[in-house]
């Protein structure tokens, strides 16, 4: 048996619905249809009345989730694509994210964002939005890179008493497979050493972890040992694990699939520069997508986001310094 990243997300939701009567799912086409990506397939039938189709009203979807959370429910809302969460932006950052701080009432909602580019996706079905949400106080932002994390982190997202932005990468949905679902997991907020090494630390998250691992494999054939750190959640961001890795390797490359201004790579490098300056043997480097919208055509799309060859080139440059 094997299970995909997407199936893990579905199973996590099934388990959450099964174990906790306070959980429900709300989103466009999530009901009988099972969602645009089938992340909720069969759930409406298995859990009648608890997997509800929403009108095309992302603002009201997020607002409704907050209201239900106030009443003790634990809603999961699915945005059909992360990009459409811009319409719910106000409710997420101003309503959900401020509720606990303002009123002392927790806001346990999970916002599932199918993120990231796919071939042919184009400017409005491809965006990475983790940096936008991580900027705001009051949100937890998860970016699972493995099947196991997709499962266990989604369960934790639902269990956490705060709003969680759950960034699931569409490219991993069917492509990433594991043998079985995990029975234990790292705590939220802990990064993971996805591969050990001593020559260079590549910090990555979401689909970039897979690219980084390819690069590590490739550079291993050249004799380099690359350590890959999977951030898992970008807020909180596990600076300690990143710095411990940089302490071992002295070299840091941070890779993100988002737009280049700001974002996770800036935050990681700023933290290491401020708090772990002495650990760096050479200047840190970052790699992001290009500073244009995400292009539709596969040729352009493949050049827009960082992929193994570009990461490998950046890594080699760093290793030679």
């Amino acid at each position: 048996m094997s299970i995909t990243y997407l199936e893990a997300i579905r199973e996590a939701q099934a388990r959450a619905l099964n174990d906790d009567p306070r959980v429900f799912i709300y989103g466009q086409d999530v009901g009988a249809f099972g969602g645009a990506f089938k992340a909720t397939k069969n759930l409406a039938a298995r859990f009648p009345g608890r997997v509800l189709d929403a009108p095309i009203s992302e603002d009201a979807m997020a607002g409704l989730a907050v209201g239900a959370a106030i009443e003790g429910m634990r809603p999961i809302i699915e945005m059909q694509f992360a990009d459409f969460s811009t319409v719910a932006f106000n409710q997420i950052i101003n309503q959900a994210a401020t509720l606990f701080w303002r009123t002392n009432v927790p806001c346990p909602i999970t916002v599932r964002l199918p993120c990231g580019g796919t071939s042919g996706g184009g400017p409005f079905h491809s965006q990475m939005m983790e940096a936008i949400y991580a900027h705001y106080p009051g949100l937890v932002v998860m970016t699972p890179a493995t099947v196991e994390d997709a499962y266990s982190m989604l369960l934790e997202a639902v269990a956490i008493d705060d709003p969680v932005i759950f960034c699931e990468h569409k490219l991993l949905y069917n492509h990433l497979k594991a043998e079985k679902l995990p029975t234990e997991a790292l705590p939220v907020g802990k990064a993971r050493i996805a591969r050990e090494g001593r020559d260079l630390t590549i910090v990555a998250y979401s689909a970039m972890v897979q690219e980084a691992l390819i690069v590590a494999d490739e550079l291993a054939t050249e004799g380099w040992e690359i350590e890959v750190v999977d951030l898992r959640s970008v807020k909180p961001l596990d600076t300690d694990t990143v710095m411990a890795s940089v302490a071992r390797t002295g070299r840091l490359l941070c890779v993100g699939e988002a737009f280049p201004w700001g974002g996770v790579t800036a935050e990681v490098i700023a933290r290491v520069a401020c708090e772990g300056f002495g650990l760096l043997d050479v200047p840190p480097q970052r790699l992001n997508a290009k500073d244009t919208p995400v292009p539709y055509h596969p040729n352009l799309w493949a050049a827009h986001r960082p992929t193994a060859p570009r990461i490998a080139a950046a890594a080699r440059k760093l290793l030679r310094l």
Partner: protein
Amino acid sequence: MVHSPLKPEPVGDVSPMQELYLRAYRLMLLARVLDDKFASLYRAGKIHGGVFLGRGQEALSVACGLALREGDVFAPLIRDQAGRLAFGEPILDAVRTYLGSALGPMRGRDGNVHRGHPKQGLLAMISHLGAMISVVNGALLARRMKGIAGTVGLACCGDGATSTGAFHEALNQAAVEKLPLVMVVANNQFAYSTPTARQFACDSLLDRAAGYGFHGSEVDGTDLSACLTTLTAAADRARAGRGPQLVVARLLRLCGHGEHDDAHYVDAKLKHLPASRDCLKASEDFLRAQEWADAPTLAAWRAEVVQKVEETLAKVHREPAPDPFKENWYALSARHLCEGYE
């Protein structure tokens, strides 16, 4: 709610309508006196940030609060001091929040009209207009899922807020889910300085009801009896499962948008229309005409609320301001997930 709304002492053998009216009037009076107090504190430079009054809207607002019961959900907006009191918000909450007391419900983190007790059904508004309505929907949906029946949710907004996308999405959502939402629009002729002619182009905002599948009713927002009747009926219909309700009230904002605003842009002619009368004065006239209260009684009631307000202020003035060194600076309830900065 947090405590039960002001009840008048029994005035002998009164009808339920009369009792409700008297209760409503005294709550309106309390709201007005409280608002006036905030206005004078503002002028004296004693309040941080803006002051927003419900002057002229007390009849509508109080009727909203009184149409609700314990266990209902209420999302007041900036002009709902009367409705809040009627729903059971303690005067202390308003005073503490306006004066930034550390003991207030918002602990100095938020101020003025941004206060509430969400777990008791009194939502704490965010500023973004229209945004609270879908939150009410969520609370109502949750109750349905939990098998709680017979409660309703009431959300207030102004004419201006009807132009927000959030208003639209939430009304449509309530209709699709057949939620017991009562949406009350106080058409007070202005959104800040913007007259309704620049805000919408339908004949009446009531014309929106059919487009959502809401039951709609209109009311003269300066007539307390009419407000009580209309709001109670709307809440009762929602409670009885007859779906979401839109109530549109016509009135005039008898103050600036906030106390910083002299409202010079309000045409004098408009101020002298019958629809622009002061609902508090109108209900006093009514009380006297009905012989439900004479001048000395009214004066005594006023003295009583003035004293209550003064006492509350005196108490709150002695309360501590929030202390940044005691503040925990955590935005998440899961403290272990908060990042330590610096």
